[in-house]
């Protein structure tokens, strides 16, 4: 462990400031913590005590931060008991939160980040978008969902049509980041197909020089990440992916959350909580 990691993770009691429900049992939760809001980088997550009756915490990515007001937002979907209990917590309740945790995504000298988020893998992509909005980057985000998107989408100002994809996430539009949506469902203005198909459409629209400037960032279900990694390979693009695994401690103590990683010394089992959650796609797929 390097010395810089010392004391980097805070244990905070965070008050719930807002808690909105969206279709498909998706929720956006706003929590108060100046320390976490200020210290977070895209791709990091928090480990939350959802209720006193469960023995373990739940890991959830940080979607966006408001450093002025000291708050941060999470987007989660109810998939089991823990997330169900979280969904019942009310504004004003206090949750014990550990964070920010993990290495996060690394912005590189590639100026065209291609952000691909599927389902509840969208949050870290939104976090990168937020970080790059004021920097010298030209990000393009592709968000995929099989349930209605957890935001009211709108027509993109630039009117560009990527094979039927014309609508975007309002927040990203406000940040000046181009974004399109994909789904296998019939949603108006949304690309019908996989996020990777829409990514190909986007990449094909770039010049060779522009394409050389692309770095792929992705978070989502495992099959999606596998497809994204092979797309990146096909176009010969660098690719960072954020992974998930059951976690106990989330601070590197238990080796419970590992993934097999190819290294120069051979296979290594790396901890997703502190060695990740972001890995080089070429090392894990």
């Amino acid at each position, binding site marked *: *462990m390097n010395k810089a990691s*010392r004391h980097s993770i805070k244990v905070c009691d965070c008050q719930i400031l807002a808690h909105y429900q969206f279709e498909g049992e998706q929720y956006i939760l706003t929590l108060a913590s100046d320390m976490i809001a200020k210290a977070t980088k895209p791709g990091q997550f928090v480990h939350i005590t959802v209720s006193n009756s469960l023995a373990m915490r739940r890991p959830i990515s940080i979607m966006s931060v408001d450093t002025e007001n000291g708050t941060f937002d999470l987007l989660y979907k109810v998939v089991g008991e823990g997330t169900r209990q979280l969904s019942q917590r009310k504004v004003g309740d206090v949750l014990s939160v550990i964070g920010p945790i993990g290495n996060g995504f690394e912005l590189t000298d590639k100026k065209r980040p291609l952000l691909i988020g599927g389902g509840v893998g969208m949050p870290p992509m939104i976090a990168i978008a937020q970080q790059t909005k004021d920097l010298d980057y030209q990000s393009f985000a592709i968000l995929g969902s099989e349930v209605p998107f957890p935001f009211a989408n709108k027509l993109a100002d630039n009117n560009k049509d990527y094979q039927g994809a014309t609508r975007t996430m309002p927040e990203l539009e406000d940040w000046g980041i181009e974004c399109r949506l994909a789904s296998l469902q019939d949603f108006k203005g949304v690309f019908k197909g996989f996020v990777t198909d829409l990514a190909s459409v986007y990449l094909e629209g770039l010049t060779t020089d522009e394409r050389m400037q692309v770095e792929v960032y992705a978070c989502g279900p495992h099959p999606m990440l596998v497809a994204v990694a092979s797309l990146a390979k096909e176009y010969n693009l660098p690719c960072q992916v954020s992974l998930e695994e059951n976690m106990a401690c989330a601070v590197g*103590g238990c080796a419970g959350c590992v993934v097999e990683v190819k290294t120069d010394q051979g296979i290594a089992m790396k901890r997703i909580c502190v060695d990740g959650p972001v890995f080089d796609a070429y090392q894990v797929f």
Partner: protein
Amino acid sequence: MHNNLKTQFCGLSLNSPIVLLSGCVGFGEEYTRIDGFSNADVGAVCLKGITLEPRLGNIPHRVCETPSGMINAIGLQNPGTHAVINNILPKLDKVETRFIINISGSSIEEYGEIAKRFDDTDIDAIEINISCPNVKEGGVAFGNDPDMSYQVVEICRKNTVKPIITKLSPNQTNIAFSAQRCIDAGTDGLAVINTLMGMAIDTKTKKPIIGNNQGGLSGPAIKPIALLKVHQVYQVSKHHNVPIIGQGGITTANDAIEFIIAGAATVGIGTALFYDPLVCHKINKGISQYLSDNNLGGVDELVGTLALNSTVLTCDTGINK
């Protein structure tokens, strides 16, 4: 740190009766990522279980939540004895606390070999893990056979002058007998208990959730079992002045005090950290408060003070007349 928490264990001076348990705090430094956490708040830290050669460990999932606890099957992922001695031990801050290495072998000789290698280091003590439920060869196979346990402790005893703590498995019929054999073989201390074997099944796929199919159950779910085992082992160990690290589901100061009353000289904290990384402060404070409230000068005055109920009915009911 509260003064009345200072205690002696197997010849080591500890700041606090709290021992952080093997497998829960990596190789000693991981929890210092947490702001407010310090190894100086605990008496000793047991490092992750190690083997002679490096091990990659088991396939995921390695952990899963169960009612009031969790199952783990890490499979002793570790870089091997050589790397631990050369790369990890030199980096530990030995001013803050005492460090205990936790060793596993696939043969009696391997246990002996690892003990010998650590004899030359500045590690404070060696914990012999004869109770790991998560590896195919070795581990609990040694712990469930009192004669094998004896041989493992005996060879380690021959190979080191460091304090030896033997970690007993609850997955056996007579833990007190096993403790007696380990004492006969020369162990200085006992750790009671390791995890209980358990399973969890995903009803959608009909597969065990844990990659290794089964694993070790820890956390509050096992506390009553652990407490009884400590009590049973203490009945043997007290005659030899062999101290116990009581462990299994301790989450609060009150839990810790129960273990001390049952016979534990020190208390292990493992799974509780996952829920509350700063739990040691609270447990230290609670034990210290209890000692002063009860006019006790230190933890040693509380060890094994259990006042058993008289289990024989004494009133004359006349039924048998």
